[in-house]
């Protein structure tokens, strides 16, 4: 079995979160939610520590992480890109915009670029349908996007 390598402060943070839920196996989803909020993602080592704290198998934790699409084992990029695939955005060409991001970054949905700069994801409706199609990069909203505009936007962050 692999040895877990994590910094002491990270381990302590995970233990603290587990303890705040009474180290109860039934709180696994809440624990994972909070830990992902803290680290941005749930790498294998982190799941190992959570499993040990909650006294459940790592396979069980991994089962939960892979079942819920909200949980991710991949780190998000410095600039997380989220393309809205809600109905309004979709009918106004979100898919073409997404394809352009994929092509430009050479990433598939859910992946993070090797330099850690960009990650690409989809989401459902950000409540800005009037601006469809909408893309979020970090907290910044880009509306009425066309595939032609993708490169310019990415260049803002590539500097």
């Amino acid at each position: 079995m692999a040895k877990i390598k994590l910094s002491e402060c990270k381990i302590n943070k995970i233990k603290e979160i587990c303890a705040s839920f009474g180290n109860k196996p039934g709180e696994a989803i809440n624990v994972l939610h909070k830990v992902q909020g803290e680290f941005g993602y749930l790498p294998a080592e982190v799941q190992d520590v959570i499993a040990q704290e909650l006294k459940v198998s790592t396979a069980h934790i991994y089962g939960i992480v892979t079942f819920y699409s909200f949980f991710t084992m991949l780190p998000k990029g410095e600039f997380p890109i989220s393309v809205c695939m809600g109905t309004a955005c979709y009918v106004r060409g979100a898919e073409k915009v997404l394809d352009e991001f994929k092509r430009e970054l050479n990433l598939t949905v859910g992946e993070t670029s090797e330099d850690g700069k960009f990650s690409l994801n989809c989401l459902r409706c950000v409540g800005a349908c009037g601006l469809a199609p909408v893309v979020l990069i970090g907290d910044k909203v880009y509306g009425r996007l066309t595939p032609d505009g993708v490169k310019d936007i990415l260049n803002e962050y590539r500097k």
Partner: protein
Amino acid sequence: MKNVNSMQLAFANDLFTIKQKQKMEMINITIDNKPLQVEKGQTILKAARAAGIEIPTLCYYELDGVKLENRPGGCRVCVVEVEGRKNLAPACATEVMEGMVVHTHSLRVVNSRRTVVELILSDHPSDCLVCSKSGNCELQSLAQKLGVRDIPYQGAQSTYRKDMSPAIIRDIDKCVMCRRCETVCNVWQTVGALSAVNRGFEAVVATAFEQDLVKSPCTMCGQCIMACPVGALSEVDNTRQVITAISDPKKTVVVQTAPAVRVALGEEFGMEPGTIVTGKMAAALRRMGFDYIFDTDFAADLTIMEEGTELLGRIDKFMKGDKSVKLPILTSCCPGWVNFFETNYPDMLDVPSTAKSPQQMFGAVAKNYWANKLGIKREDMVVVSIMPCVAKKFECQRDEFKENSNPDVDFALTTRELAELIRQFNIDFDTLPEEDFDQPLGVSTGAAVIFGATGGVIEAATRTAYEIFTGKKLEKVDFKELRGLEGVREAVVDFNGTPIHLGIAHGLANARKLLDQVRTGECQFHAIEVMACPGGCIGGAGQPFHHGNFDIIKKRYDAIYREDAGKPIRKSHENPFIQELYKEWLGQPCGELSHHLLHTHYFDKSNHIEIEG
């Protein structure tokens, strides 16, 4: 001999039963027009089966003797029609209610059941002709039973990589997601190697991070194979290597057979469970062309000499006030159990006995003593073991059991693989005469036979340790207080005024209970015996499939003790060939040569948290 703990337990059990009876409420239901009085709170499935009405199942799995149940209600094969209810009800997960009217084979039920099976088959490979589970597959027999002659649903089939470990093969393409393996792994063994992962069509039963089984906490006990209704989990097949070795004139092939094999092998040839086939098995092995037909039981007697001496040594030191001595001593015969404590109790690696398992002791004796006697090199000897176990395949491949990369035991075959070989060699097992093992490594006592059942190792050790410790002859060799199929048992045996506390567990969840008590110092035992499988090795994962029928395990259990009772010598230290082996070669039990050849050490296989610098 008194046995306070089990008496208390028996009393508590009685009280429990009385209370249960008071609580038990009977209700009236009708199944297939048959009025029945059944216990409230039961499922339709259990009520029907108790009344002799069979409802087919697939994901449902029960091993009632050890209170193990898998009831996800997921496959829908057991659906029945309940009058007044709109949809069909899964019989395994629906409780009976007063006045309930159930139909188990109405047209709607039969059609629905067949559709369910057709849908399962639409995502299942149809390579039954070459599947290792063919003939023992529950899905195959279900399809036959329901008259499925066509798979009308065609579409994508899920694919997954094959995972090969030294003992267990996972072929997830065949998985029907019944989760029986997951329940056995997590509930009965508390190993936690398997879990359902991913979602929807991608869902599979896998290890954490979908690593290979060898990198997971899997103990290789193989109980998942026993639980698997299809061929998704199976043992590594070593039969071809064995046939090749037998037909190689340059090789001397020695075979050893574990105690539990002789009470189960007959089942593969249609015999009643519990039929003892020791003599026929020896005859079959001889006809197959093995050069020496020896017995793991011989090595079991040897194990008792080594482990018993080690136990008495520890007790002696402890009584003289040596606080560094580790008690209880834990048995180390079961390879699943060894893997389990190496993974889960790395802080207690000095507690188990250092004695090798009988399989490995035999290998060491064969390749050092016997090869030397024959005047052949160890490389020219092939040792094959016939085991009720799949973890033995893993054990014989451990590096510490090799010399210059030549293993002490070359191949471990399961009982099922032996049956397969016997069939391949066209041997009519039924008409074989009863033959004996070869001397000297084929001679054993009754104490060795009972190694195959839970409680047997500790009883065998007690028979020898008692005589050595007290210096008196043991008149009654049957220690009934150590027997039984309760998951955790405790007993106190009186060693002529010194009470010796013994613990027994079968199943790793039960072992964990005892081990946790030992770790906290809550419980003081002198010795604990652990076997990973239900009922001990007789319920091992290499045995003929029992499909959850615990009566089969019980019959094998009784047969083991019948075989013991029929043996002229029933104490390991009285085995004349064991005495001879010490005189001629080994010297003393736990002596220098024993220490080198018959003892081992353990490794920390836990998942450490290392703090990054």
